[in-house]
């Protein structure tokens, strides 16, 4: 077993997409561990608290008229003229990786164990050692077309501080309404439509004393974690799918083991979109987006060895922790294959919990029948009385419902 480290730098991140074409930032073997740094793509909502004087973050977010450290952001076009910028923000998450796994082949399953998760403290003198995050109630939020207060519509950024002195919790520092921001290339972003645009704090009005009585219990986790799909070379990081990605389940934190079907040789694992806390549904469009560092262990399960294990027949991401298994249902379980060429934009027109629930039901039934050897009648009775279905997210185009079954149901004399 070897322990690797993968710090963030323009060379070790890719922004807004999964890709089987990106050169791996690290190659390791099954059984190895790695400490991987990740950055939130919302760090520029408050540059001073989340980027300034942090060499890793500075290097990734660097963007002036002359030089943009990470040019492509999203799976969209990289040839101008641009509406929003290179990659067109079709996918927004800063992902560290890819990590290639030796000997991984399509049909295998990669297990990723999260051993530890730590927040990344601020470096700027005024805030050194403290940890911050940003929550955007954004145009892709569930609420956006159903607001009741003026001005309608509007986007709002809330900056939180994460307190880890005791039981960790987040507390709001201030918020502001998004104003049009001009990026160094001169493109004006009237809404939050391209990641990593620095918010000029001279253009916004900060409102303090918000959520003053509220402490949000921390749930440190990675919103986006997964493998490169095989269907396209560049795949938007926003819709989660069969190789994982932007699942946005807060249970994907310390102690979780995620299983992903390998779709391309080397698996190509990437991780990012770190969150300090999120509720089931991620209603407003984002969590408390906070840069985090994780310790991971990678275990490759070869296709031939899957039979008779909990991974038998797995064709979708699955979570295991000490107490439960969760399967992830989506509006489209593999939207890339189902929706064809235009899938990456088309998926946003089809979002529905009803289809996601249907998918979660089917996946959990399959799991109970294949892995736990139940008959269909047994599986359905058990799901009715012992499985819990929850809303994972309603903001990532391919909406999610997770089905969870507790392990202690099976622990028996």
């Amino acid at each position, binding site marked *: 077993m070897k322990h690797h480290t993968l710090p963030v730098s323009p060379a070790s991140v890719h922004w807004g997409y999964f890709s089987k074409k990106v050169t791996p930032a690290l190659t390791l073997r099954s059984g190895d561990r790695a400490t991987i740094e990740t950055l939130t793509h919302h760090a520029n909502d408050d540059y001073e608290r989340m980027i300034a004087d942090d060499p890793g973050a500075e290097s990734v977010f660097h963007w002036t008229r002359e030089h943009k450290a990470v040019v492509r952001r999203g799976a969209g076009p990289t040839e101008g003229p641009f509406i929003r910028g290179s990659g067109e923000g079709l996918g927004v998450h800063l992902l560290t990786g890819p990590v290639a796994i030796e000997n991984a082949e399509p049909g295998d399953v990669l297990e990723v164990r999260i051993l530890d998760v730590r927040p990344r403290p601020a470096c700027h003198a005024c805030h050194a050692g403290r940890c911050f995050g940003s929550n955007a109630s954004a145009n892709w939020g569930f609420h956006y077309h159903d607001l009741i207060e003026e001005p309608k519509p509007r986007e709002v950024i809330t900056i939180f501080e994460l307190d880890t002195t005791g039981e960790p919790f987040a507390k709001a520092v201030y918020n502001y309404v998004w104003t049009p921001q001009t990026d160094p290339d001169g493109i004006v972003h009237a809404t939050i439509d391209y990641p990593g645009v620095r918010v000029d704090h001279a253009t916004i009005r900060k409102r303090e004393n918000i959520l003053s009585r509220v402490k949000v219990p921390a749930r440190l986790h990675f919103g986006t974690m997964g493998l490169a799909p095989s269907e396209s070379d560049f795949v938007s990081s926003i819709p989660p799918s069969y190789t994982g990605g932007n699942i946005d389940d807060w249970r994907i934190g310390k102690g979780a083991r995620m299983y992903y079907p390998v779709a391309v040789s080397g698996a190509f694992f990437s991780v990012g979109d770190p969150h300090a806390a999120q509720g089931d*549904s991620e209603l407003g469009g984002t969590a408390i987006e906070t840069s985090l560092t994780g310790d991971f262990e990678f275990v490759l399960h070869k296709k031939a060895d899957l039979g008779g294990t909990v991974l038998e027949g797995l064709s979708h991401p699955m979570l295991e922790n000490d107490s439960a298994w969760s399967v992830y249902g989506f509006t489209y379980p593999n939207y890339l294959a189902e929706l064809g060429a235009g899938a990456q934009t088309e998926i946003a027109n089809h979002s529905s919990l009803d289809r996601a629930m249907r998918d979660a039901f089917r996946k959990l039934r399959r799991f109970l029948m294949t892995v736990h050897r139940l008959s269909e009648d047994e599986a359905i009775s058990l799901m009715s009385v012992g499985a819990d279905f929850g809303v994972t997210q309603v903001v990532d185009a391919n909406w999610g419902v997770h089905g969870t079954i507790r392990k202690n149901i099976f622990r028996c004399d």
Partner: protein
Amino acid sequence: MSFRPFTSESYSESDRLEAWRDVLSAVGLQPSAGSTVHTGHATASRRNAEGVVLARLAAGSQAVSPRPHPAGDMPIMLLPTEDGVTLRTSTGHQIISIGHLLLLPRKGDWSVSFQRDMRAIVLSVTSDAFGSRKVTGPVFDEVRVLAPTGFTEVFSRTLESAARNLEMLSDSEWAAVAQSLADLLPTFVRQLMPATDAGATATRAAILHRLCQTIERRLDDPDLTPARVADAEGISERYLQKLFEGSGSSFTHYVRERRLQRASAELSSPAEAHHSISEIAYRNGFNDSAHFSRAFRHRFGLSPREFRQQELERSSASSAVTGQRGWPQQALAQLRSHYPLAGAERSAEAAPADKTPCCAEGERLHHHLSVEAAHVHWGYFSRSMPPQIEINSGETITIETLTQHASDDPERMIKGDSGAESVFHWTREAKNVDRRGAGPMDASVYGRGAGEGFGVHICTGPVAVKDAQPGDVLEVRILDIVPRASRNPDFEGQVFGSSVAAWWGYHYNELLAEPNPREAVTIYEIFAGREGDHDETPHARALYSYRWEPQTDPFGVVHATYDYPGVPVRPGSVKRRHNVLDGIRIPLRPHFGVIAVAPREVDFVDSIPPSYFGGNLDNWRLGKGSTVYLPVSVPGALLSVGDPHATQGDGELGGTAIECSMTGTFQLILHKKADLAGRVFADLTYPLIETGTEWVLTGFSHPNYLAEFGAKGQSEVYATSSLDLAMKDAFRKMRRFLMNIKGLSEDEAIALMSAAVDFGVTQVVDGNWGVHAILSKRLFDSAPRS
């Protein structure tokens, strides 16, 4: 998307009127001066296109008048859909019956009042709808009322079907519908004008109509020219052009529009799926498919391919549903016209003996309501049932409840239990509880039995709370829940439950194994656990299961599916399979699926769909130590409890939980309307659950389906359930709670919901599907204690 849903659930009581004004003003209306607007439940669906607004309104009794409008525009069309209205003008007032169409000028002294509930479709078309086209509508300054015949009926039907499908229409479809409504209106209004100048107009209109028909027949001809059409009708080409100009169009524009419309209809029809897009283009007079694609995209915003794909998915998504629970729409319509509902009939006179206070705890009394035929109502809630007992606020009461699934294994769950035997007693001669469900007593809909099983839960009660009045809030604290052990000597002391994977389950239409479909019953034994023994946590284990086989009830009706509650399953009629769910034990979550106060809207309400009054909430968090707050709608509140569950998962996927008879002890606390301000349950319009650590808000597909759909409610709610709608409702309720109760701004509320509120699936099997939102009390720990 141009679709705008509105529900009063989003707003605090003080803001509702203003929000409702906005809805009315979108269609050119406002509340009449001096009329009081009912600020209760209101919903509206509306959709806008350029200059066109179509809205479907459902709200309480009120009167509306025109909102002052500058130009002399097209009149507002209003179609009452459930009851008649009273029209008041300067010359007096008249009663307008349902189905008549009102043409209302945009100014002037008139008002339309809805005596009962407001239920109407309103169409507003302003000159923007016609863009640069000049539509010289005649000035229109008096109210017209049109009987539903001829063109009026055609127009009304079009309005109705468009309004009914507002949210279903894609943007392109809606654009087409809106445009055709806008185009119909001037014709309609013109036709109503006095006959003097009508002669010439009518001739022109007739010729134009014929021209259009000719064009329609020849749309496939790519060389269709004005000259050839004019020729065919024996008029000059110049006159033809003039006629089209007079109608606000041109020949070329009209032909292209018709071709595109027809192509879009063919693209969305599954029957045409085998034709290629270029074939369809060619059939509709487009020689060049690239040109067709461009024109199509320009018109509908999508390429023909994308459009076809979208339509295909829509149709496949909507064709999935087969059977539906509850009232069929048809039967409800008949019911409304022929069947004046009598007062609730009881199966037997109430026996007073064991409902009297049995002991005093301190100063407060404790009551006991045992279960027997006379103490239950089966499958429905009713505002007109006499209460079993009346108790004072603050008092406690123990209520015995039975699961309606006890008949799945009568040996274990009924036999020897005098209470259960009394409720389930059903022989050829006698059926102790005849009515089961809110359906007709003569079973004239399906013939299943009295009440038709439109509602299935055995509810104990109702319990009246002294002084309770509509507008108050009833706090129901669940102090204890104890399972009801078998009284059959063979199973003395053992506890059993049943779970049915039933035809109303979420899985039913897509079973994998044969026979397909099928219903399966699993009988569980419940182990309550021993105090202090950690290995023996309370759990359930499956005992055996069987497939449902047609059961003949004592009256001779055969139940091929599980369609009527309490039909005793004869042991010999089914094949028991043992060793099911081997090695699996399911932790218990004892709770009551049904806790309800009586709804105000109608006399007999199906017990299956939960709603604002509580009912079949099926949320396992309603267990011991929890509290549910219910808005009181009728005097005395009339609380009923039933549908006891030993455990259930979020979703209740197969249709039922582990249904197990249990006895609950409750404390009822009445909060008078005047004292609600500042309380957590102030402004409550839905069941609010409180546990030791959480607030659980209950969202439904249709938060108040009885008010929203009116007479059709008990059928419609089953047809239109969706998690997407329930999620919206849960979001709105949580936002309102955070803003009004916790004092947050909207921005704070949404940020907090993203970061810390958990939304989960309550159930997808009770007609009115549920999504709950959980707010941890821990978030507010730092709050200063007041």
